[in-house]
């Protein structure tokens, strides 16, 4: 696209036009304390050049503090922060080669859209003609070509958000930080802007660090996701890895839906046995002690009273509580003999005969479940 080419030639950086111009960001045991409260606790994370990394977690998990440390608004208590190998933890925000999009956009209300976008260019003493070209190119990139003369308050939330993106990319920073940029928008607009952000990321090749508490957003956008909890990173990986192979119970519960079966595990040869509701369940992996078997809803298969379960699969008796029809699939909520609930998702065309009130058998393949150490802080209640 011509627009993106215009942006890539920003004179601020002489890395113009070079492919993969995003910077590498490396956090090493980064820690931020406020008095006794540890907001970020020894976080180590390497973000590859040009990568789209999402920091995902509930509020208060340390993801925004980590982002603000990268931006320079928070000075780390200890640990190091490097950009392409250069330590930047003590550099002031205006000396770091970053762009930032704020949750509520933070567009300057006393400036027009064009003046807002030109602001970082003026700070870099870029000539007026060149400035005008770059502003036009940035507006083109976010598809707001006609709006330069308007004031921010004359734009809708989604338009303001795109202006904020244009302002943050116009000077070609090598890293773009985004702090829940879509949080204030309605669902439909959010879905569309997610695709826009993905497109802009592909066009620019800049390293994106994106903070959100919305797991769906993280799944749609990211190359990799770092899941934060209590100031620590629980797991870093692709959306697929986090969903299929969660390493902690928190990740399993936070990302997507799952059924969690808790019990005491006994390790055997490559397998473990877990007692649950008077049955013995088998899980892959060796683990002894308090543990939990985690199964994604689409991996569970409901077997009716007259049918036979697949040989070798785990099986638990269950009662169907309710059915939620979703068009492309349906969800079943089941009660296990010990009172726990299980969640099953059946794709349309492969629906079982089970109805609310039916006594059924809940089955799954051993390899389709993940065995994890139990974490008493994680609730088992279905969300």
């Amino acid at each position: 696209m011509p627009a993106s080419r215009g942006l890539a030639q920003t004179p601020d950086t002489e890395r113009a036009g070079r492919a993969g111009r995003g910077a590498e960001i490396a956090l090493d045991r980064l820690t931020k304390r406020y008095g006794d409260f540890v907001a970020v606790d020894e976080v180590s994370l390497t973000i590859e050049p040009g990568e789209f990394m999402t920091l995902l977690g509930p509020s208060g998990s340390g993801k925004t503090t980590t982002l603000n440390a990268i931006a320079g608004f928070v000075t780390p208590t200890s640990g190091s922060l490097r950009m392409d190998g250069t330590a930047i933890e003590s550099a002031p925000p205006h000396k770091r080669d970053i762009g930032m999009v704020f949750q509520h956009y933070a567009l300057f209300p006393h400036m027009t859209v064009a003046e807002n976008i030109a602001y970082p260019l003026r700070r870099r003493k870029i000539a007026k003609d060149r400035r005008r070209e770059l502003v036009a190119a940035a507006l083109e990139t976010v598809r707001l070509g006609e709006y330069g003369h308007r004031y921010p308050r004359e734009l809708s939330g989604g338009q303001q958000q795109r202006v904020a993106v244009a302002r943050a990319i116009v000077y070609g920073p090598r890293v773009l930080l985004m702090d829940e940029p879509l949080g204030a928008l309605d669902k439909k607009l959010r879905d569309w802007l997610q695709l826009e952000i993905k497109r802009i990321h592909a066009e620019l090749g800049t390293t994106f660090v994106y903070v959100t508490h919305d797991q769906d957003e993280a799944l749609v956008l990211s190359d990799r996701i770092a899941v934060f909890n209590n100031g620590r990173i629980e797991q870093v990986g692709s959306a697929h890895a986090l969903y299929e192979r969660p390493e902690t119970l928190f990740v399993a519960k936070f990302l997507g839906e799952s059924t969690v079966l808790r019990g005491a595990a006994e390790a055997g040869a490559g397998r473990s046995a877990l007692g649950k509701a008077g049955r013995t369940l088998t899980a892959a992996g060796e683990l002894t002690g308090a543990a939990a078997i985690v199964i994604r809803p689409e991996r569970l298969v409901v077997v009716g009273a007259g049918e036979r379960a697949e040989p070798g699969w785990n099986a638990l008796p269950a009662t169907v509580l309710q059915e939620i029809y979703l068009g492309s699939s349906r969800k079943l909520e089941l009660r296990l003999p010990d009172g726990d609930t299980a969640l099953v998702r059946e794709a349309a065309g492969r629906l079982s005969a089970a109805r609310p009130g039916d006594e059924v058998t809940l089955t799954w393949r051993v390899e389709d479940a993940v065995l994890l150490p139990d974490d008493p802080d994680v609730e088992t209640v279905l969300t």
Partner: protein
Amino acid sequence: MAVLDEAPGAARPTAGPAAPGRAPRERGAARPAVLLLPALVLVLVFFAYPLATMLWRAFTEPETGWGNFTWFFTTQANIDVLVRTFTTALWVTVIALLLSYPYAYLMTVAGPRGRAALTLLVLVPFWTSLMVRTFAWMVILQDTGVLNRTLDLVGLGPVHLIRTQAGVIVGMVQLLMPFMVLPLYAVMSGIDRRYVQAARSLGARPLTAFAGIYLPLSLPGIAAGSLMVFVSALGFYITPALLGSPDDALISQQIFTQVNGLLQWGRGGAMGVVLLGMTLALLVLVALVTRRAGRKVSL
């Protein structure tokens, strides 16, 4: 005081506080008017009537015509007083602004407890009688007062402050500072800190971010506070009378002399009319300027 009360409204750029709440007024249109009545009577009896009397006397005593105004504008001493009044008010406003701006900013960044303490520090003198505070300044500023004793100890020698224009300005700045701090704080507390953070992330040094982003956004507060202080300072009587020298009298003192000393009600009235007219003209000017600026700055 009635002029003063209008000041914050006139200086605020919001054009439409009247827009909401218009609908319910249509049905019981008489009721709000009844609520206004006591205040209206008060203003008519204690403000409009004396004002009209003053106007009447300015044009009729000792004889009908422009005589009193001709006298005012052709007497050099009167022009000097008028100029001195305006320059004093200007100095007071500028100094109060320079002192209040960082103070109000500190109030916005302080924690809840710090903010309460800072607010109290502004309000306590505000609740103390003006007379008491002026006398306190006399004690502090006099040649053998606390300030000069302290300066003496450091070897900076006595500085004559009492009965000088500088002394008057010092006293007035302190007395009027709440009128500057409070509007500034009201506007500053509405400025999102992320504007400055955004400017910093976009490459602005701290001072550049302040000058280009924070200062323009705080302009409505500067305008409101400055107007309050300036207009109040123009009509100050007690403080300049007690702290100042008769040679450096301000217009309110001259009015007092004309009316109380020389029984020249007409001349005193004319001086009052001149002060009122100039103040109104200033209010209109500021309202026009801030309205234009308000179209650009809205919070």
